């Protein structure tokens, strides 16, 4: 009788599986999972391995001395890193427009007139339309009193306020006009210029000022001026309220920022500018075939990002940075909310950005050292580095009920997406692709403009709900859930994440639907794209239709929606794809550790 432990050191978790061989028959005794200590492939991992081993052994009444063999995985020598580059910026010149979403503007409709400060009301000419600006030095009572006291011949068509008091002023005015508020830098609005103002109905956005001809109508523009006003109209799409001011050189400009370029060292050796966007980068990458290395333009953001990855990897693997090779890259188009320079009301604009995940392949990780240390510390004489991770994962995945050869596995972790295929003849093909969970987290964080990375990480993991009263919440699916006891008052009105019974509050004021949409988009952009990319590489004849069973393993396979997305996507190719269930009990976890134990059987036979 022999007892074997399989140990899988992953980027985030260390998994252990214990098996017992008796008369050529293998039984699985126990398994355990612990968070990995230190960077994968370093001596620091030993702590987590020992803890996981101990936990597993204890659960079946054994000790370290009862083990005959410990088998470690040959960890995939792959490290991923991510970065984000904004490639556009928007600038408003000469305070030519205000377009924001104050929570409570007042009045509805549009108007045009000459800009006039409240202090200069006495200068108003009769029968000439004006739009009045009022600083927060005036209270809402004073503003209303001044405007109500004007003779009927003075025409005030609209009002722009600095304070958040639009409704208060409107409730006290005799005549109803569109009122826009919360314009922080009201002093910079040029007096005497012609302007158009618009406030949309609740739940709608401006229609006149987001239309170039609408601006032309209100401000009396000629054809050439209308052409120039088009960027302004574009930037006002989706805003609740807006002002457009006619100034000689005022406009909204979109600059393309120099973000550097990447060079692929493959068959064609192309260089691609980052600002051409993700699609151009990925197409160029696809044409290269086998990639030897990827370099960034020195002195640019992309250049320093790729250098940083190189340095990190060289530290882990003790290979000089000059010999570290970046072998894959995933670029994803995204949008990032950035404050517009020259804005009067703190407006932000969704600027174009490119998110990049890169992957480095090096020499073997120093696994032998870990094996040596483990031998010393556990007293188990036979500690072996046995087999490549992807192979072991495939063998482990085969224990999922309902699979048959040829079986492909898809291991989606934090830094990379790995695929492997065992063919009918038992031959193994494998690939590693840059981009996985980390990139999704970064995309969520960027697009929602979140301050904390951790919030993005949690949004990725848990489904959403909106606390609509202290006794009920509306789930992402539209379902209602009621409670007998009141919820924590601090959750009231907030969007929360449901981690089992625990609720995590999101402090940012973003609608639940928007968060869900961004989250799903990010997962699709990374996981679906990468799964297809990786599976195509290992599929016979590079055709997904030649695959029959795909088993999802690893951390991301436990996600509440990614397996569904992939099942949907791959069913179009008549491929059976689903979350693995290792040994019929473990779910998508423990595939590698199980594979290590199983492969020991093979060696003994």
């Amino acid at each position, binding site marked *: 009788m022999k007892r074997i432990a399989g140990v899988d050191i992953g980027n985030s978790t260390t998994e252990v599986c214990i098996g017992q061989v008796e008369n050529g028959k293998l039984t699985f005794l126990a398994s355990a999972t612990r968070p990995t200590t230190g960077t994968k492939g370093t001596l620091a991992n030993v702590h987590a391995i020992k803890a996981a081993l101990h936990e597993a052994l204890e659960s079946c009444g054994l000790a370290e001395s009862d083990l005959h063999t410990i088998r470690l995985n040959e960890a995939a020598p792959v490290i991923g890193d991510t970065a984000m580059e904004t490639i556009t910026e928007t600038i408003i010149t000469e305070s030519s427009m205000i377009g924001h979403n104050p929570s*409570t503007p007042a009045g509805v409709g549009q108007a045009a007139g000459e800009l006039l400060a409240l202090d200069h009301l006495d200068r108003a000419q009769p029968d000439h339309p004006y739009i009045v600006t009022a600083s927060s030095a005036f209270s809402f009572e004073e503003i209303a009193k001044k405007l109500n006291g004007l003779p009927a011949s003075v025409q005030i068509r609209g009002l722009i306020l600095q304070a958040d*008091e*639009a*409704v208060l002023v409107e*409730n006290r005015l005799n005549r109803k006009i569109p009122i826009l508020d919360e314009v922080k830098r009201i002093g910079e609005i040029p007096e005497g210029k012609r302007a158009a103002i618009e406030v949309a109905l609740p739940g709608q956005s401006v229609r006149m000022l987001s239309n170039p001809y609408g601006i032309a109508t209100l401000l009396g523009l000629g054809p050439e001026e209308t052409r120039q006003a088009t960027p302004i109209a574009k930037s006002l799409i989706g805003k609740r309220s807006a002002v457009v001011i006619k100034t000689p050189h005022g406009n909204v400009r979109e600059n393309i920022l120099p973000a550097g370029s990447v060079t692929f060292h493959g068959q064609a050796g192309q260089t691609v500018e980052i600002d051409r966007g993700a699609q151009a980068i990925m197409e160029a990458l696809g044409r290269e075939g086998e990639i030897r290395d990827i370099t960034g333009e020195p002195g640019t953001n992309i250049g320093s990002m790729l250098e940083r990855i190189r340095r990190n990897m060289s530290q882990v693997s003790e290979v000089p940075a000059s010999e570290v090779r970046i072998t894959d890259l995933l670029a994803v188009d995204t949008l990032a909310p950035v404050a517009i320079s020259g804005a009067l009301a703190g407006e932000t604009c969704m600027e174009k950005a490119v998110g990049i995940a890169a992957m480095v392949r090096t020499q073997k990780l120093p696994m032998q050292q870990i094996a040596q240390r483990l031998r010393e510390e556990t007293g188990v004489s036979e500690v072996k580095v046995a087999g490549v991770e992807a192979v072991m994962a495939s063998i482990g995945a085969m224990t999922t009920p309902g699979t048959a050869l040829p079986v492909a596995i898809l291991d989606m972790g934090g830094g990379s997406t790995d695929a492997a295929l065992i063919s009918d003849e038992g031959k193994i093909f494998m690939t590693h692709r840059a981009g996985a969970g980390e990139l999704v987290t970064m995309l969520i964080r960027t697009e929602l403009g979140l301050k904390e990375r951790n919030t993005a990480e949690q949004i990725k993991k848990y489904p959403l709900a909106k606390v609509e009263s202290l006794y009920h919440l509306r789930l992402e699916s539209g379902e209602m859930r009621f409670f007998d006891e*009141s919820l924590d*008052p601090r959750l*009231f*009105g907030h969007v929360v994440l449901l981690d089992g019974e625990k609720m995590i509050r999101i402090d940012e004021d973003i609608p639940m639907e928007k968060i869900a949409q961004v989250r799903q988009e990010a997962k699709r952009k990374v996981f679906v794209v990468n799964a297809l990319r990786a599976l195509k590489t290992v599929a016979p004849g590079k055709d997904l239709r030649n695959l029959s069973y795909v088993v999802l393993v690893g951390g991301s396979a436990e996600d509440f929606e990614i397996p569904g997305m992939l099942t949907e996507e791959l069913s179009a190719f008549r491929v059976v794809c689903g979350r693995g269930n290792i040994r019929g009990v473990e779910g998508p976890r423990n595939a590698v550790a199980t594979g290590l134990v199983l492969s020991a059987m093979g060696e003994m036979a």
Partner: protein
Amino acid sequence: MDEQVIRLVTEAVLRDLARTGKQISGEELTRVITKILQDNPPPVLAQAGPQNAKEALEAAVRTDYSQYPPARKGTNPKEVVIGVGPAFQMEIRRTINGIPHEEVLRNLKAGIEEEGMVPRVIKVLKTSDVCFMGLEAAKLSGSGIGIGIQSKGTAVIHQKDLYPLSNLELFPQAPLMTEEHYRKVGQNAAKYAKGEQVKPIECKNDPMIRPKFQVKAALMHIRETQQLDPAHPYIEWEDRS
């Protein structure tokens, strides 16, 4: 409240504090003040009339509220009720840091109005505890959201189904409140009524504010509690501001 009395008592309490080295709870402080006043009737109070200082405090005239209409229960879902303390705008006219009660109400109401909700003011006479006050206001509010405000300026936003000592938002450090803060309290209460996401109001926090204002706060609270009138638990206070 007579500033001289406050100074006298504060000094006595601080001496006591320096000697024993421990902070006193609110209740204990009320006892201590009453005792100090009993033992050493300050000349100011002595001049004022009764020899016994405790009596001087207790003999305060209680306002008769029997002619005021009792507060009704609102039915308008846009309504947010503000419940003011028993001494509000009557025996006490400014908050602990000197903001006139008219300004406090004006800002609370403006905040509610700006968010498109409708304010209503009642006076709560059955309790002087801010949380219970807020809860009473919430129970009479058409939206189920109420604001409780003591005469010294401590405020709370409450919801009708919550336990009294729980709340939606509490603003315990009255000496640090400004008119802008009261505006935001009104806005937040209205947002709760609308079921919108509410951003917590940024308030200053000063750990020294409690010892510094403890005596004044206690005296104001005593003064407010004197005006309790259980026979008229809550009355309409709409046209007072």
